[in-house]
């Protein structure tokens, strides 16, 4: 990387920061000038203090790791299941004919509404939470895998066959790599859905985790804490998506 490229990156980082800085300045001055009362919106500096407190007390780490654990187990099992199942459906017409109506019927159903049912089936604790993350994240990955397989350029398949590839080689060397960019789009949506779902469900039924802390802060009207948690979730979201960007550039180096 040349020095001019580094300079461009630094510049774009600052340009991207401008809206955040502007909002923070506005936020802080609204509180400091007493325009908005702290019971509605605490000053940003107060939020930072709260964030500092939960960080040094280890509380943030404790709850954050619980959340990450649930999210990771639910998401990664969804990734494995949905990609394998999606490949099977994408590659087989009878499978598609059988499963497509079922998928269409169950996809729009908010998986969170199954919470009570999952509690009856799986008991309290992590299992129903993970099950719902799994169910919610599976759909976008599943649908994108099926679409990814089906949209592979037919000419590329013909070209591979013409060059002597057998059925198995067409699958491994053309269909799978051709489907990866679309599958990756599903992985992205699945990750975002997992984060949304884990926090939302923890607010309902968990006794730890970021969602639990959020519900607790709301109940006792600890707005400083509430805002500091939202900042944590926001930062985690950015890290998550930057991480996915990195995976994508490694996995799909040919992408334009």
């Amino acid at each position, binding site marked *: 990387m040349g020095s001019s490229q580094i300079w461009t990156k630094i510049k774009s980082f600052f340009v991207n920061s401008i809206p955040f800085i502007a909002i923070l300045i506005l936020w802080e001055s609204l509180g400091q000038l007493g325009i908005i009362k702290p019971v509605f919106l605490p000053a940003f500096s107060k939020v930072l203090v709260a964030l500092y407190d939960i960080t040094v007390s280890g509380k943030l780490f404790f709850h954050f790791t619980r959340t990450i654990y649930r999210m990771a187990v639910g998401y990664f099992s969804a990734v494995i299941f949905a990609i394998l199942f999606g490949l099977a459906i994408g590659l087989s017409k009878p499978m598609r004919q059988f499963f497509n109506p079922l998928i269409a019927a169950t996809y729009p159903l908010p998986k969170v509404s199954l919470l009570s049912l999952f509690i009856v089936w799986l008991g309290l604790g992590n299992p129903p939470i993970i099950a719902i993350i799994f169910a919610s994240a599976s759909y976008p990955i599943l649908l994108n895998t099926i679409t990814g397989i089906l949209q592979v350029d037919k000419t590329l398949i013909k070209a591979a066959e013409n*060059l002597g590839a057998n059925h198995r080689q067409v699958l491994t060397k053309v269909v799978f790599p051709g489907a990866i960019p679309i599958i990756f789009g599903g992985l992205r949506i699945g990750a975002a859905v997992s984060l949304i779902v884990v926090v939302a469900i923890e607010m309902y039924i968990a006794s730890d985790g970021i969602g639990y802390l959020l519900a607790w802060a709301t109940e006792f009207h600890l707005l400083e804490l509430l805002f500091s948690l939202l900042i944590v979730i926001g930062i985690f979201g950015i890290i998550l998506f930057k991480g996915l960007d990195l995976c994508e550039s490694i996995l799909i*180096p040919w992408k*334009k």
Partner: protein
Amino acid sequence: MKIVLDSICKEFFSRGLRVEALKSISLEVEDSEFLTVLGPSGSGKSTLLFIIGGIEKASSGEVSFHGERRSSGPMSAMVWQQYALFPWRTVKENIIFGNEVRGIPKHERNSLADRFIELIQLKGFENHYPHELSGGMQQRVALARSLCNDPEILLMDEPLAALDAQTRTLMQIELLKIWSQFQKTVVYVTHSIEEAVLLGDRVVILTSRPGQIKEMIKVELERPRTLDMMRSQAFHKISDLAWSSIQDELLKTSSKK
């Protein structure tokens, strides 16, 4: 390798209607001949190519090949209009695809790839992905990929149609240079009269749908062909002949639309 087509017919069904694409095409392509196929769009030129290549089946009639197999590769290899390069493979990986799937050992593949990259003058671009190349470069990679598979016959489906006029002209000459080194039998489909005459030993003119052989023109120009020949009297004479033959067919096609 000599190709013999014996009353090839092809029909297919589109929205419940029977469409006749090709009608009793009988034709012999001599060993190491460069045959160009010229016809209005919808005359079944590409279909004819696909039938020779075994990518599609004829409804009736027969394709046979005569002559001694000299190469280790498949009977025929296709060069596609839209290049059909694998976007996830680098230039080098695209070129050796055929050898890879046929189980040629890696060191052999690599030296073959190097030879063909040199041949198409893309040294330094081995590890580029197709989308990083210009259209002309991509089509050179596609040509190398087919040749590297060492087929007896090269089937080309309007391979230069997507290029701008200047690149196209340069590629025509380069294509001839590469072909002269390999002396494969070539069937080359195009809708450009100049291209058909400049490249071909003979030009087959197809009628509009259903495609039938309307005329076979022998191109009496010496090889190697050059761009200067395109300004010669002989070239114009042959082109005019082809043009007058295809003109009625073009009019028929346009009046149908």
